[in-house]
């Protein structure tokens, strides 16, 4: 009896599983495209309850020089948008040479557009938001019209985007580290007996060897940006408080318990650093004209005039690859002089998109942005171009550029505003340069072990209350701070005294107090 029942049950179970298995294979996957295809054109979207019956033309402003096939690509994007949200989109560019002047004018003159790229610090975010140029993005609004974005963008990003408690941009979701590494020459390291450079001392020894033995190569070409970021705070686990004048106010990102802000120039570490830099400058580690130099940050290293460069890991590995193509014997690579210190992820507000406060269709614009950021088809188009024309997909998460890639180069046409880690494609290279692998491994390691987790990583300072002090301080940094940072001063102590005196006169204490006040308020509200 039991045996028969079990056989029947077993057969039954197998039958059901076979049927369901077949069923899964045969049923098409339900997705948005299906839903809207089923509905007649012009009807409201029943799944979300949003009325998309009116056809809308959206306009977006992006930064940069665009690309030859922009119109082509955005036509394709418009097709998808038309299907899904009954909207089309056109794009206009503010080139690098003009965005500073034209960006604010777009708002002053009340130009009619809907979306615009923005970024904290360098992309007019704070300035436009405080002048009421952007549309306020409330939680309700975002949840209604951009539910997918809400699932992707991390909580901390929204915090970073807050100005006086309100959010005005959608930050991108891209995990990048601004932490500086040092690009170095493998061949020179070998020549002078360095198998690794993983501390300040080793770096200085490397520089020393170069300066003593190489006539045509300087250790570092600074262009005014020397070793201050690595030495002054990165290698010690500190970070600049976002929104404060660089790099004068620091917090200890590696230690979540320490929330006291510190003024860089008054720390003993700064004085130590200043002495060391003067020593290096006097020894000839870099040109006396560093403050004026017209060189870019990378050219001297790439051309072989300098033995190292300082920048973040993505850029350094990019230039290292360039070097290795032309001069494989130089064995360009990079090194981290503080490989075990915690470092923060770049603020997500480094790239983002905002809505125009006077946009006529903010809801539809938000829905469009929702698609840009989370819909694989749209994302691929905006980032990589048209499949088969500009790039070839390699699997789900990689790509190779095709012949026409120059007409729409990957990830160059200002798509960074809606970067999405989950949808990004990696460049597929058959034999990647070891530097590339090293960089990827480094970033992985940082993601897993070394990302700092400090409450202030999400905090942004607003300078409204101290804007005059900040303005004056901005004039002083170039004059009194930068020369000390590259050691081009006659008397270090005197220079520091003068710097501190001028800064105090300008009101740096007031700014520090205001920052601490905002920080305390922010922490208390959590």
């Amino acid at each position, binding site marked *: 009896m039991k045996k028969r029942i079990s056989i029947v049950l077993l057969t039954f179970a197998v039958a059901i599983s076979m049927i369901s298995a077949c069923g899964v294979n045969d049923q098409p996957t339900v997705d948005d495209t299906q839903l809207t295809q089923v509905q007649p054109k012009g009807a409201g979207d029943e799944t979300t309850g949003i009325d998309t019956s009116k056809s809308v033309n959206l306009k977006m402003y992006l930064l940069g020089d665009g690309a030859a096939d922009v119109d082509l690509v955005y036509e394709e994007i418009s097709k998808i948008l038309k299907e899904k949200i009954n909207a089309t989109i056109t794009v*206009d560019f503010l080139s690098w040479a003009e965005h500073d002047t034209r960006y604010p004018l777009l708002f002053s003159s009340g130009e009619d557009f809907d979306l615009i790229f923005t970024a904290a610090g360098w992309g007019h975010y704070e300035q436009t938001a405080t002048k009421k140029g952007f549309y306020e993005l409330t939680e309700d609004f975002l949840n209604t019209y951009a539910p997918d974005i809400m699932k992707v963008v991390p909580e901390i990003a929204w915090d970073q985007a807050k100005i006086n408690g309100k959010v005005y941009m959608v930050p991108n979701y891209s995990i990048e580290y601004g932490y500086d590494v040092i690009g170095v020459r493998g061949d020179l390291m070998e020549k002078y007996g360095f198998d690794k450079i993983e501390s300040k001392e080793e770096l200085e020894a490397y520089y020393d060897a170069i300066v003593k033995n190489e006539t045509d190569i300087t250790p570092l070409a600074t262009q005014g940006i020397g070793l201050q970021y690595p030495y002054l705070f990165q290698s010690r686990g500190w970070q600049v408080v976002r929104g404060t004048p660089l790099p004068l106010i620091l917090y200890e990102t590696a230690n979540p318990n320490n929330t006291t802000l510190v003024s860089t120039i008054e720390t003993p570490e700064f004085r130590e650093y200043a002495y060391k830099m003067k020593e290096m400058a006097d020894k000839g580690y870099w040109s006396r004209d560093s403050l004026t130099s017209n060189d870019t940050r990378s050219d001297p290293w790439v051309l072989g005039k300098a033995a190292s460069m300082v920048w973040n890991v993505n850029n350094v590995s990019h230039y290292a690859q360039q070097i290795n193509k032309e001069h494989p014997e130089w064995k360009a690579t990079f090194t981290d002089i503080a490989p075990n210190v915690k470092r923060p992820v770049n603020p997500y507000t480094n790239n983002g998109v905002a809505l125009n406060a006077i946009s006529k269709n903010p809801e539809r614009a938000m829905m469009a942005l929702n698609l840009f950021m989370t819909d694989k088809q749209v994302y691929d188009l905006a980032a990589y171009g048209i499949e088969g024309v500009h790039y070839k997909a390699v699997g789900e998460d990689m790509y190779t550029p095709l012949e026409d890639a120059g007409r729409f180069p990957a990830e160059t046409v200002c798509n960074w505003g809606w970067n999405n880690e989950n949808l990004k494609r990696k460049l597929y290279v058959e034999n990647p340069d070891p530097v590339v692998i090293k960089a990827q491994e480094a970033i992985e390691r940082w993601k897993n072990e070394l990302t700092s987790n400090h409450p202030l990583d999400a905090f942004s300072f607003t300078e409204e209350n101290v804007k005059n002090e900040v303005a004056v301080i901005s004039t002083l940094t170039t004059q009194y701070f930068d020369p000390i940072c590259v050691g081009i001063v006659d008397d270090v102590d005197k220079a520091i005294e003068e710097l501190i005196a001028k800064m105090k006169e300008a009101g740096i204490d007031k700014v520090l107090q205001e920052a601490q006040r905002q920080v305390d308020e922010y922490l208390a509200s959590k």
Partner: protein
Amino acid sequence: MKKGRTDVLIFNITGYFITGLVALVCLVPFIMVLSASFSEEKLVLKDGFSLLPRNFSLDAYKTVFEKPEIIGRAYLVTIVLTITGTILGLFLTSMTGYVLQRKDFDWRNRFSFFFYFTTLFSGGLVPYYILMVRYLRLKDSYLALLLPLLFNVFNLIIMKSYMSGIPVAFTEAAIIDGCGDFSIYYRIILPLSKPVLATVGLFIALAYWNDWYNSMLYINDELKYTLQYFLYMRINNIEAYKKIIAQSGGQVGSFIELPTQTLRMALTVVVTGPIILAYPLAQKYFVKGITIGAVKG
């Protein structure tokens, strides 16, 4: 007579020497730019500028002219704009200048002040832009390129100053003959003002030729861009690069495609090239001296 010869000799030696020196100092940097434009980028970056091209290369020019249709079109726009603007501007400026230097016009100083005052006070770019774009609706219009440079006070004052130096004898005869104000201006003063017309005409033409700013502000339609807009945009990219680096603490900026040094040099040469020919043209009108004898005749 011997006395005459030595002083002319001294004068000539000093004259040729000084003007030659000045000309040389003006020429050498330009030659360096020219040489760099014909050089190989890497060598320029490594070894700097020189009088002769380093490793002759046309790469920079190839890039400048890589889209000949665009450059050709931009050239056309610029040339038409310059010619139209110069003619209209000259007419406007000279007419106004004439009126303001008439010694029998009692209100001339008040009107002069009216014009001059605008060089002292200005509302800045924002209100000007709003006026042009919102109220005059000149976005993407050729007028936005033509109007701003048509008339300016500096040219007006030069014109007025020159015209006031024309001896009254010339106009007296015409007044006796019953000529009206406009006729005097048109038939007598203008022909006598060839040098200043050439000068101010040259200035106006140069202003139009060099203008990229107005294109940047008001034009979006690619077909309407002037030559300078294309060229200066690429030269100025590097400023944006530096500023973004400074503002973001070095975090951002790697994606900006920077023009190479040689490209910027080639752009400068292309920008200068044609207009430098306009100068000899203007020189034709620098006819020395007015002879009062002409009036008597």
